[in-house]
């Protein structure tokens, strides 16, 4: 895997992780997109150095590995679908709560309250 590709993938996943830890849903969705891009770059890089298009034309030139490209394509389609679903869910959450933030688990807070002497 080329260094540029590896560094880019690392930077994308790092930025995605940072965004994922925010409390705003839009940032989380963008963070997930970045992580998925990073993963796709790792897959692409796993096919070895770039070469001619994977078409058998009789020239005998070395061709690039077509499998990672097929895998990336599948992964992109799946990520696209799930991200669209996530956006719809985020919009639904905005309609219901009129805020874009992630809320705490109510039941968790209630039970944590027992331990803290009922402070919540």
């Amino acid at each position: 895997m080329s260094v540029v590709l590896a560094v880019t993938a690392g930077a994308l996943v790092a930025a995605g992780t940072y965004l994922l830890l925010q409390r705003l849903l839009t940032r989380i969705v963008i963070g997930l997109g970045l992580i998925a891009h990073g993963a796709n770059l790792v897959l692409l890089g796993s096919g070895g150095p770039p070469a001619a298009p994977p078409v058998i034309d009789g020239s005998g030139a070395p061709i690039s590995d077509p499998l990672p490209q097929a895998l990336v394509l599948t992964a992109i389609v799946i990520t696209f679908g799930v991200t669209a679903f996530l956006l719809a869910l985020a919009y639904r959450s905005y309609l219901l709560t009129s805020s874009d933030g992630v809320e705490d688990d109510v039941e968790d807070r209630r039970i944590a309250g027992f331990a803290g002497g009922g402070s919540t």
Partner: protein
Amino acid sequence: MTTVVSLLVAVPLVAVGLALVLPSLALRRAVSMAASLASLVLSVIVLVSVDGGDAISVAVGGWTAPIGIQLVADRFAGLMLAVSSTALFGVLAYAVGQRDTDDAFPAFHATYHALAAGVALAFLTGDLFTLFVAFEIMLTASYVLITHRSEAAQVRSTMTYVVVGLVASGLFLIGIGLAYAATGTVNLIEMADRLGDVDSGTRAGIGWLFFMVFGIKAAIFPLFFWLPDSYPTAVTPVTAIFAGLLTKVGVYAIVRTQTLLFPSDGPSTFILIIAGLTMVIGVLGAIAQGDIKRILSFHIISQIGYMIMGLGFFTVAGLAAAIVFIVHQVIVKTVMFLVGGLVETSSGTGRLRDVSGVLHRYPVIAVLFLPAALSLAGLPPFSGFVGKLALVQAGFSAGQWIVVGVSLFASILTLFSMTKIWAGAFWGSPTTNLTRRPGRAMVAATGGLVAVSLFIAFAGQPLLEVATRAAQDLLTGGAVTIGGS
């Protein structure tokens, strides 16, 4: 027989299509039940066939592996398929009996069968990337099923579920990329051959990445936090099938990859520590809860620890015990949630402080709860006892006294929290909210699965023998070859 194996994935997919186009609810129900029953029959045929002879390998589309995609049905996959299609059929019968589930959500049957297809593909695939696709089919269907009421509580908890699922998928893809870069293949059997030549540090890194990815799906410590938050908010049939199947598919993937790709010579201390912590933290979480479905959700986590413990021994006896335990858990966990749903249906709440005296008003619910609860805690003569006894024996023969002690301690706590539900919801004077008698079909479906769980206990010895043969296949690499049939 290769056709039958392909049909295990194809039948639910056809049912998805039919359930989407059929106009009337009655037709959708009929087709859905028929497809589920057909899957059940086919999976039993496959199990009997692979247990009597060799594993079945299918080259999808006529392209032989490693170029094409290979489906492999061995004893482990066969057992998992048979038990999962039993649970799928039972829960579908319950959902149809409940009436308001598929009535309020027209795409229920289509989504349910998409989930079934994903689960079957995950058990059958012999290819790492197809495993990813199978997980995605299963998870995407589960996202839709868990949100279909889309009220505030569900949207909030599903958000966690979907985000965690997507992060795990991203890590899974990175793992596949790294494994492909190291070995040049995504076929599991070929990868297992080539990983032997890979530098041990690289191999360990990829191995632990997969352990973490599947650990998120299986909800092992410390990656379980999403589960008790999201599962209880869905409707009962959905929660029940998630509880019975989804985490176990994660466990299946852990067992499959750790035995085939990253085999260990002796007991793995790291896995055993994780197993012990998962059991204890899960059961302690359950004790703190006051809602039936949340108590049961924490028990899912605790019970995953037992399965991981069986794997951690890396002996035939340990793995066989883990397989028996998984088979028992799929059924019993599903039953527990269905019974919890019956209590909720009859009273309108699952909170222990708001309902009591179910035993006096609707004794049939109590009759269904008791064997399942005692089985979960591992009391003889129920099915959990068979699994736990086998695990404890395997632990003693592997010399792992500490983790076995921890598992027995967790069992006592499990029994304690089961008595908490029993004393809270079933004993006492009936509360005034116990007004709705649960439908006969729902009770019958739950009763059917209770009977299956009793049958597992009754057939404990033959089951353990099949599981032992399956475990031998797993540890010796089995009889499956690349592209062979």
